[in-house]
């Protein structure tokens, strides 16, 4: 770089740069305020809340409200349900996506463009247009109000997206690798398991993370399909309680905090995969 533009850039670091920075910082703070307010009130005693209102910072760390709420809704069970459902969907949907994308992206079967359109449509359909027939069929099959029933549905919905994405990724898979494996006498399964899957592992990891979080956050279908306490996921349990309007303010914020914590934990754990992955998914 020549020195001239560098000097210009430094000179420009005047008040206007700081004004832009400041307004972005203000924006970021505004975005975070709801989280802070919720966290504050979740650790207040009811008396503190009654006297100080929702805005005063907490005097100490009062965890009884959270513990109360945890026990009342058996939150550990809800967490477990969410983990079981989301993890199963993430793994199964990636398996199905890989199989589909192997046939479409590498096998280039006839009519693959139309098949891809079908998968794309399957992913954009409103779930409202599927919910009643699924509800009816799953009741007949004994899958209603079971986690397996929800796992099957979301495996298909997530795999529809995964197929679409992976097919275009595998469409550019290095042909020499496939040919070489075939010459070494590998059949299609061996090529898939020993060449395609290991080489695409980074993309598959992104998909697993995405499917996990998307399924964790799902609300509509789990709300319809998981009606008993023993099967409900975290968002459904919290959403139903909120809908009943039975909670006092500190309990509300305790419940919100318990809903926020796992989401933030995933965000921190998977942040790098996520930001890389979002851009993979966006422009294809």
């Amino acid at each position, binding site marked *: 770089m020549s020195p001239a533009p560098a000097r210009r850039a430094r000179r420009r670091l005047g008040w206007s740069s700081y004004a832009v920075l400041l307004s*972005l910082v203000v924006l970021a703070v505004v975005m975070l305020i709801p989280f802070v307010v919720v966290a504050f009130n979740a650790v207040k005693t009811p008396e503190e809340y009654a006297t100080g209102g929702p805005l005063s910072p907490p005097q100490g760390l009062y965890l009884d409200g959270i513990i109360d709420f945890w026990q009342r809704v058996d939150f550990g069970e809800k967490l477990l349900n969410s983990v079981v459902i989301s993890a199963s969907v993430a793994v199964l949907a990636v398996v199905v996506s890989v199989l589909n994308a192997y046939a479409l992206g590498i096998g280039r079967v006839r009519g693959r463009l139309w098949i891809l359109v079908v998968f794309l449509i399957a992913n*954009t359909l*409103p779930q409202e*247009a599927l919910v009643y027939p699924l509800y009816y069929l799953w009741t007949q099959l004994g899958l209603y109000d079971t986690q397996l029933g929800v796992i099957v549905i979301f495996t298909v919905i997530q795999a529809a997206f995964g197929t679409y994405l992976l097919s275009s990724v595998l469409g550019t898979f290095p042909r*020499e690798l496939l040919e070489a494996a075939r010459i070494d006498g590998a059949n299609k399964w061996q090529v*898939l398991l020993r060449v395609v899957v290991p*080489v695409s592992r980074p993309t598959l990891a992104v998909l697993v993370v995405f499917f996990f979080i998307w399924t964790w956050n799902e609300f*509509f279908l789990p709300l319809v399909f998981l009606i008993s306490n023993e099967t409900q996921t975290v968002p459904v349990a*919290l959403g139903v309680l909120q*809908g009943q309007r039975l909670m006092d303010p500190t309990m509300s914020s305790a419940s919100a905090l318990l809903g926020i914590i796992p989401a933030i934990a995933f965000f921190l754990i998977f942040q790098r995969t996520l930001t890389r992955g979002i851009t993979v998914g966006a422009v294809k």
Partner: protein
Amino acid sequence: MTPPVLSARPGRATRTTRARRRSDDRASYLWFLIPGAVLLLAVIVVPLFMNVGISLTRWSGVGDPQWTGLDNYRRLFADGTFWASFRHNVNLIVAMALLPTLAGLVIAAALYDFVGKRFGPRAASVLRACIYLPQVLPIAVAGIVWGWILAPDNGALNEFLDAVGLGALAQDWLGDPDLALWSVMGVLVWVQVGYPVVIFMAGLQRVDPALYEAAELDGASWWRRFWHISIPQIRAEVYVVLLTCTIAALKVFGPIYVLTRGGPGGSTNVPSYFSFQNFFEKTQVGYGAAIATVLMVIILVLTAVFLRAQDRGESTRR
């Protein structure tokens, strides 16, 4: 992703045997599609057609559906609630697609171009993470957070207004029929804005810095560079964000369920919630199916139009 380098070169078969082998080859890949196809059929395709079928009947969910032809659709187009729910959807498209895209463009350019270049990429990515954070919340949880903040008595927002001497502005944010939809829109902007910011920032990384340097040497202001370089260069991202957010806005259910249940007085009802009510609360399954079918058609048409437009945009650019 780094594909390992390969030394072996494939041997060459004669062209005819190779072509025959390829087509056999292709057909045998169909086996891999079978599990996916069966699942897709069972979970998407069959229910989809069943739903369209149900929409042509009167059915309470038990007993035999009664064929009524297009009656549900006739009733639908005369139903004020139905039209109102779609009008609300338009508001939600503004809140979830239009405003976040516009704000996202400015924020992303400011973060990438200003903060990233003058205060370091670390500052930019921390700010980006803060703005993106609401996106990772389950939408139902975001609804709980805001339902509590916007509560009329003791809600954090009203208390805040009181504390800064603007107590007169305190409102029943979600309980006032004239205000509830606007409150929901505000919440959805908060939820949504991080998504375009992240996508657009990633897109901006692709833009050739030489373009900016040339423009800067020509004395173009930041706004002119933003308008004439940044936006045209990330047009593909803008399309994708507008499409996905518009579809998400049409499908919105969770925030409405948690924040207002479509109320007060139907002032925040949306098609997805309206169909849910008909399915599971009013047991007018045929009618609910008709609403869902209309919603589906709108979304499919919209997707097709957007994809077309994007295709054309891409081809004229080349």
